[in-house]
């Protein structure tokens, strides 16, 4: 009886050990000619399973298998505000068997905040996957602010009174609120609510007066909020009545977040070309498009993506103390 139990326990442990194995496949780098992966491809996501980054990445991975010709394993390496996963990606073998998702501008902020030891030079861009644009919103039943101008005027007349919830200190939506308020010339109080869901909750329970989120964040609950303005050079076709901030004379550049697909810097150009082609086809696949309706797919080639990463890096570095003070 006792021996049997011991055996059962041992089996249980072997099972547990096996559960965390896997992913240790090695592959010889392609010597020459066009690259083709010869084993499962690992896609590193720097946030946990089920997170906002994880969902779209998994949909991409699922439909990309057809064009890559191999299984694509999503590996969630979270922690350190994303920097643990990006550190791991930067250090991965540049054999084309490991690629990853790079969140912009979070990735750039992690460099500015010295969370990781990597720089943009440690990665090579493959393509862009998702782009989401920031918007300024208030509660739908808040009659004080029918439009962006009324919000700004109220803010100017009452400095340090309006409250804006953010998704973290100096995180993407805090940057958005700051950029808007600074360009419009009013000061406000930022409330770090934690995540995007808490940010919206803080607005709904009237602790905050306005907030900046991404357009996709309010999908399905549009009636609860009034969108006052959108960041970017042009209006969005889904909300054609909402003016851009630039139209009204405030912050005129695009702001939002992007998710690029990148590889460690050492990979050959063949590897980049292979994945760029395969992922482009994936994002044009009707099955993918049907599955990916909840977020904004935006394919950009590797040159444009590399430029976007550098531009976001420059922007993140420009956000010095001047940006954060009024």
């Amino acid at each position: 009886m006792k021996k049997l139990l011991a055996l059962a326990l041992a089996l249980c442990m072997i099972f547990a050990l096996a559960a965390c194995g896997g992913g240790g496949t090695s592959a010889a780098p392609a010597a020459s000619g066009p690259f083709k992966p010869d084993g499962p491809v690992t896609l590193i996501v720097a946030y946990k399973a089920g997170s906002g980054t994880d969902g779209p990445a998994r949909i991409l991975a699922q439909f990309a298998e057809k064009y890559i010709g191999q299984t694509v394993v999503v590996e969630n390496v979270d922690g350190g505000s994303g920097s643990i996963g990006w550190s791991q990606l930067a250090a991965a073998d540049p054999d084309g068997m490991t690629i990853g998702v790079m969140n912009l501008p979070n990735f750039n902020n992690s460099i500015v905040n010295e969370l990781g030891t990597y720089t943009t030079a440690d990665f090579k861009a493959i393509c862009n996957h998702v782009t989401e644009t920031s918007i300024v919103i208030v509660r739908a039943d808040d009659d004080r602010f029918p439009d962006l101008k009324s919000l700004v005027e109220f803010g100017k007349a009452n400095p340090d009174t309006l409250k804006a919830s953010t998704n973290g200190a100096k995180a993407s939506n805090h940057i958005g609120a700051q950029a808007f308020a600074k360009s419009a010339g009013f000061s406000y109080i930022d409330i770090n609510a934690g995540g995007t869901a808490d940010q919206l909750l803080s607005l709904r329970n009237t602790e905050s007066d306005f907030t900046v989120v991404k357009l996709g964040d309010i999908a399905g609950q549009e009636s609860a909020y009034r969108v006052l303005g959108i960041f970017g050079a042009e209006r969005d076709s889904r909300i054609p009545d909402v003016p851009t901030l630039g139209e009204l004379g405030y912050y005129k550049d695009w702001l939002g977040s992007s998710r690029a697909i990148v590889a460690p810097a050492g990979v050959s150009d063949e590897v980049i070309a292979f994945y760029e082609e395969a992922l482009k086809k994936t994002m044009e696949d009707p099955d993918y498009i049907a599955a990916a309706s909840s977020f904004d797919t935006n394919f950009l080639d590797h040159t444009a993506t590399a430029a976007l990463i550098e531009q976001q890096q420059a922007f993140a570095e420009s956000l010095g103390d001047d940006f954060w003070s009024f």
Partner: protein
Amino acid sequence: MLETLSLMGAGFVNALTPINLLMMAAGVAMGIVIGCMPGLSAAMGVALMLPLTFTMKAETGLIVLGAIYCGAIFGGSISAILIHTPGTPASAATAIEGYQMTLKGKAGKALFTACYASFWGGLLSCISLYFFAPLLAQLTLKFRSAEYFWLSIFGLTIIAGVSGKSITKGLISGAFGLLLSTIGLDPVTGAKRVMFGQAYFAEGINTTCALIGLFSMSQVFILAEKKIVERAQATKFTDKMSLTRDERKMIRPTIVRSWLIGNIIGILPGAGAAIACFLGYNTSKQFSKHKEAFGHGSIEGVAGSEAANNAVTGGSLIPTLTLGIPGESVTAVLMGGLVIQGLAPGPELFGKYAAMTYTFFAGFVLVQFFMLGIGLLGCRGFAQISRLSDAILIPCVTVLCCVGSYAIHKNILDIVVMMTFGVIGYLMRKFDLNTAAVVLALILGPIGEKGLRNALKSSGGNPMILFSSVVCWVLIALCVVGILSPMFMGKLEKKAEKEATGADPESPDEVVDIDVEND
């Protein structure tokens, strides 16, 4: 209303998938095994199994954790009845009558009673879960920064309740936990705090690793330190595991009373299954028509204790799920699992996550039936397991601790953190400090800090904002109750224990020979 009912129904449909049913059975069996081994506690079991649930679908993972919780609370009664050693403190009162029955050759009857009473206690406690949880969750819509600050303070008052003999030592443990909770990025300015130059600590100490270390690894050290001795032979029993119709009828009022007691104790923070079992036992004695049977193997006594401790499970999930305030150490561990599965406490629980929540509730109801079935069928086998030598247990648990913490992020630093906390936990227990208090502070510290600093920021530094709403005052009142009730509860427990055993509860020949770690 109709929508809610259909959501509840859909919950059952979702819960009834083959994989969920399989996992319920496995979770309950695992829980019973952990519960009936005197060295392992329910909190430790849940902590140990937490990482294994990460790869599952959210609702499946939650159901497994719930199943382990229920199973462990019931499992403690098996060793209490058969070898006079409660597997968890929650079954301490069961040992009194249960072992007497065993001596009279009625072990089967005692085990059946324990299983039957646990089932009803657990099942009835689900009613309150369905009824109160949505109401409480709705309340959190009114919570702003100031309210969150008070909520965390309210949660921290539980420390007084879980800290057993010395409140001072509980407070020391809590302060230590709060200090640890400041590690990571500053929630308001984003500045780096005590991160030892490691980006790894940017999001603070990994609560799951800390839990596994504090509860499971430290227990290994404690076990390893003791001389390995053979446990008493479990009594072989031949009588049938059943109750007559009259006996069932007799314990019915006892079960209902114990359910109410256990359920209320469960909802109250700071009081757990250990207190509930004694209160349930005493109440059954007071109301019994067969008082003479008590002390000589009363089935009412066994039923009173076991129905009460399992009624705690459903009750204690209410504040954990809705407010994020775990009322005792098992739910504190469970909380780690909930957060990782993406179930955020608050109004979204019955809004955005309603499907998942109701599936979990339905699973929790179904788990009770599995507990009844597996408990009745497997009692004889589980009794053997409860005698498993520490020589086998120690290496197994150590491996599971390491594998478990590594599996979360596949980061070797997680094992280092887990081991560090194992040593800290071991030392704390040597000095009678409280590991549950550390965990509570680790979870609640950041909520409180963010709440306070955001509130003061939005009021321009005026502290009156902390007293500016009705909800604030209600929470402040609850804090006062939270501080005072453990003192009252402590007295109640001592009194109950004294009445139950008829002797000083701390006398050495008494049944409770396990750590008075509350769970």
